[in-house]
């Protein structure tokens, strides 16, 4: 479950002066089931726009997106999303944040809380389920956000720079835990990041986007076996390869 196919997706915005701005130009590629794919690229290359189209939050001007052969035209249960920082509902505690999707489905409080507890444990937050977001650290908040997206049981999990605001140590720890979760849960993951290091550490494939207009510049298959070691020369050479590509665009 969770195969994604993107067919000739373009996105143009009308500017105030009447001209058109092409954010994405003719993007096509396929993502296999249970694959971990990262998007990297210079800022303004349309990474977030592309993610939002795949999630059904924005519409493509041209082209189509399919998840498990279902065309995505609006947000739905097939696709889960983890946003950048501050996306937890601050008025709900961790457990109720995680159970929010189940609540929207009309599932009873008892059932959705006991289901949500499983995800609390999965992301290692047992004991903090009654805490409000302001009581949690940045890393813990993003764990809740991941648990909340997973609790809806999507086939595809989209993550938009989820660890961007975390300090380096927490970030590395979260990356390891995300890979654990990915292995346990078997989801397709689409991950946007600014950090090439993060992309190489996590991904099966890295999609390198170019800007103006946003388009696929290259797709890199990361062949380093997991668990990956950042000091390994092979790892370093992948990182260098992708970095050089991005820098050559600037």
């Amino acid at each position, binding site marked *: 479950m969770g195969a994604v196919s993107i067919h000739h997706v373009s996105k143009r915005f009308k500017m105030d002066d009447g001209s058109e701005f092409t954010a994405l130009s003719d993007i096509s590629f396929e993502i296999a089931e249970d694959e971990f794919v990262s998007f990297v690229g210079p800022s303004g290359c349309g990474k977030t726009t592309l993610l939002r189209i795949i999630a059904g939050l924005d519409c493509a001007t041209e082209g189509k997106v399919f998840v498990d052969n279902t065309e995505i035209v609006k947000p739905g249960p097939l696709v*889960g999303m983890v*946003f950048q920082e501050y996306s937890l509902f*601050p*008025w709900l505690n961790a457990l109720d944040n995680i159970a*929010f999707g189940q609540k929207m489905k009309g599932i009873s409080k008892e059932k959705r809380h006991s289901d949500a507890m499983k995800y609390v444990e999965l992301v290692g937050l047992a004991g903090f389920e009654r805490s*409000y977001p302001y009581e949690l650290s940045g890393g813990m908040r993003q764990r809740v956000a991941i648990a*909340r997206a997973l609790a809806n049981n999507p086939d595809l999990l989209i993550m938009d720079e989820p660890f961007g605001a975390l300090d380096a140590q927490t970030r590395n720890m979260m990356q390891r835990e995300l890979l654990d979760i990915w292995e346990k849960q078997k989801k397709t993951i689409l991950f946007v990041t600014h950090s090439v290091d993060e992309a190489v550490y996590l991904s099966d494939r890295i999609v390198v986007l170019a800007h103006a207009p946003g388009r696929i510049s290259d797709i890199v298959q990361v062949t380093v076996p997991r668990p990956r070691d950042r000091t390994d020369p092979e790892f370093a050479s992948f990182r260098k390869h992708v970095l050089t590509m991005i820098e050559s665009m600037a």
Partner: protein
Amino acid sequence: MVQADTKRRLGYALLSLFMAVAIWEFVAVAVVQNKYLLPSFTDVFAAFLSILSLGQIYRDLWTSLIHFGIGMSLSLLIGLPLGVCMGWFWRANYLLNPIVEILRPIPPLALIPFAIVWLGLTSFSAGFVVFVGAVFPIIINTYAGFSTVPKVFVDVGKVLGCTSDLRQIRYIAFPAAMPHLVSGFRVACGTAWMCLVGAEMFGVSRFGLGQKIWWYYNLHQMDKVMVYILILGFVGLAFDTLCRWYISKKLLKWKVGEVS
């Protein structure tokens, strides 16, 4: 540490009250020397005791609370839905905003003649004036809360299956806007309390805190006027304290440090 601070605050509060009363007493007794112009603290306290023994004070308080209740209930009933619609649907905002902006600057007391013509000398005409004073702070703050719900919350909601406007309003916008709703309510209570006195002075009933101020003024019993003025202050303070306690303990406990 916190306890020591609370104790210190309490100490200073008592000191400040004591000084205010002492200055008042001194100015009234030694400087003004005229009970009509400025009744002293002891005069007012004596008047307070005699008013208490009459027992009508409870009737006054009750009547005023009814006026306040009618006005506040109406303004919540009408102001909240209007503010929600204006904050959430741009069409409603474009449609209603001009009317709200034109009506809003009108001082509520200016409507007293119409209140009396329409509703007679009844609790409802006092309630109507209170309503006019309270409804705009509620509309404006509700609008502000609903129009500034962070987009990411709405997006998260959509992805998690919260798709209709009605559900987004109920499960996302309403709790997100709660801090604004609460401050709108508190501002509205203050305005309502103010309008209440004005409305009651025009004799909509034989009881009421505001009505008694005018009544005793006509009898030239300024010490009793002062008693009712202070009661208005203390009831307002008590109600606001109760609101603040409820807000910080229940409604906004997720927003620590916000309510002050």
